[in-house]
């Protein structure tokens, strides 16, 4: 999973801490992109250029385009080498690039930028840079842009961290146990459920990535053995199930307003006289046969 991190594009946050540093992972990913033939830009703000380039061979070093903001961040020496606008101007210039092809921009570090620039401006610029490929104005396919940002999570409060997390497509949190580094990768695809994976890895001296299986974890007993679901139809005083015979009887029942042909004929057939029932009536002594005056109180 870690090696396919760059396949998605967008903003990738590498969150490290004091115990687990992330610059070596950043350099490993940079080396990988350079070897893939992508154009790589580095915004170096935290460490010097020599220190960043240390460990890379000359082939990779030639492919890196390094923007140095460590030596002279506010451009006091006015040599004219530094880009106008500082790191923000450099990022904005990358928004308007004209050449096609995939590009990787490594920010070393995003924490430095967060501390020196207002958070909202930084978020807006990062969004503009990382979403270039989704809006091809002239119709030509623009290559994917990967922005790798190194973020020291202990330096910032929950506000900026939350804001940057919501912007990022992928978040890699570094951690691990003694002697083994792990990366927890949270991948947010737009409109899909985010995936969460943990990958154990180590970085070799030449900054290539070595993926490993995790250290053996002793199997923990499952807490709370799963309670079997209670069957609510177990102890009822009435019968909820039908046997086969009962079901057949129910199916063969004709409903009162369902007219089958036999019923229709039986109703339409003229009634045979012997089949009808008769009422036999013996008039009682007290019965009044005068239908017009049943109460017998008319004085006519």
């Amino acid at each position: 999973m870690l090696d396919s991190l760059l396949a998605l594009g967008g903003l990738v946050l590498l969150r490290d801490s004091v115990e687990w540093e992330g610059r070596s992972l950043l350099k490993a990913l940079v080396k990988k992109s350079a070897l893939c033939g992508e154009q790589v830009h580095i915004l170096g703000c935290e460490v010097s250029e020599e220190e960043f380039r240390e460990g890379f061979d000359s082939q990779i070093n030639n492919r890196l385009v390094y923007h140095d903001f460590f030596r002279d961040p506010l451009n006091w020496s006015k040599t004219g080498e530094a880009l106008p606008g500082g790191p923000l101007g450099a990022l904005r210039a990358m928004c308007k690039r004209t050449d096609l092809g995939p590009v990787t921009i490594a920010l070393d570090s995003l924490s430095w930028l967060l501390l020196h620039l207002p958070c909202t401006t930084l978020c807006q610029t990062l969004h503009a840079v990382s979403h270039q490929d989704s809006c091809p104005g002239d119709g030509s396919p623009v290559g994917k842009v990967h922005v790798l940002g190194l973020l020291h999570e202990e330096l910032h409060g929950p506000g900026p961290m939350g804001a940057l997390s919501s912007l990022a497509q992928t978040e890699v949190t570094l951690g691990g146990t003694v002697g083994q580094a792990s990366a927890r990768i949270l991948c947010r695809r737009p409109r899909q459920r985010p995936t969460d994976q943990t990958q154990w890895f180590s970085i070799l001296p030449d900054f290539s990535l070595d993926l490993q299986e995790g250290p053996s974890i002793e199997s923990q007993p499952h807490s709370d053995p799963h309670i079997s679901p209670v069957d609510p139809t177990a102890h009822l005083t009435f019968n909820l199930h039908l046997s086969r015979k009962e079901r057949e009887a129910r199916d063969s029942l004709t409903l009162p307003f369902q007219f089958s042909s036999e019923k229709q004929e039986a109703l339409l057939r003229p009634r045979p006289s012997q089949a009808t029932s008769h009422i036999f009536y013996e008039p009682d002594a007290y019965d009044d046969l005068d239908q017009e005056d049943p109460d017998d109180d008319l004085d006519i």
Partner: protein
Amino acid sequence: MAAVATCGGDAGSVGSAVATASKSNVTSFQRRGPRASGTNDSSPRLVSITGTRPSVRNGQLLVSTGLPALDQLLGGGLAVGTVLLIEEDKYNIYSSLLFKYFLAEGIVSGHTLLVASANEDPANILQELPAPLLDDNCKKEFDEDVYNHKTPESNIKMKIAWRYQLLPKMEIRPVSSSRFGHYYDTSKRIPQELIEASKWHGFFLPEKISSTLKVEPCSLTYGYIKLLQFIQNIIYEEGFDGSNPQKKQKNILRIGIQNLGSPLWGDDICCTENGDSSHSLTKFLYVLRGLLRTSLSACIITMPTHLIQNKAVIAHVTNLSDIVVGLESFIGSERETNPLYKDYHGLIHIRQIPRLNNLVCDESDVKDLGFKLKRKLFTIEVDSTSL
């Protein structure tokens, strides 16, 4: 409050009312005999706007939110002139779905749309709207969903012992614009011709602000000012507030604002607790509500309240909105694996329902609601575990 003329006062509105009634056959009652001439007609005619209906409780004009289940929970629908605020879930999956349902309902009902976003181009948002289900397909989709869960032996057509079985089946004309509340298929995209036939305006913040602009600090964030001006222009030019007497049919403006309050709008309310623009969002909502109350429009706003650092702001925002619905999804939380919640993808909290021209509000008795995104439908159910 935006009111709908119920009886023709002057000849102009009566004339337009007749035109309305004769153009769209909204009722199935047909008048026998020759229709009386429009100018001499003294019977009151209801000016009906497609896709709206008056509330059964107090006659307030309502529009559908796109989800009939949500309409029922809100007391019939969203009142015209009010704001529906959706508190986003953590990964903004389900809240964007509700946003899209609202817009899709607007397209199907023929309303004008205004889509504002700082992170996505409105044209792309419109391309991803779900496809509406027409009447003859609707039942089939439902049955498909329902039968998937049933065991085969219960798959028997129910025998009805009443006389209704003999009655001829009623043909429901598949005229979608005369209904209130439609169902959508989230696995399909809305057909392109529906989008092209609809009228919509888009507001994409990065296009409106040039990056080198030097913004002087003021009480409202610049992005909000531009958005309010844009909304005001549209309302005025298209006559939703009655300023240009409309000869054509009245229509509703559906406004959708995505991710309001996120740093991409230039608001630092999610970044710090006491920032420079801490009152920017509340002022925006106040002005927006004023614009909405004087026009025939309804607005949906999604806001990432889980990122807002200052909890007092959330309370202010809730007070300044009319309906507030909070979504809490179980992704990534410990509830995802909890067997109690295995039927649901998250919980819906109805945090506020307004009292519009009323002393009481339409609160439903049920407070625990869960939602589930099935393969094609978004369903809201009463959380059975709480009973």
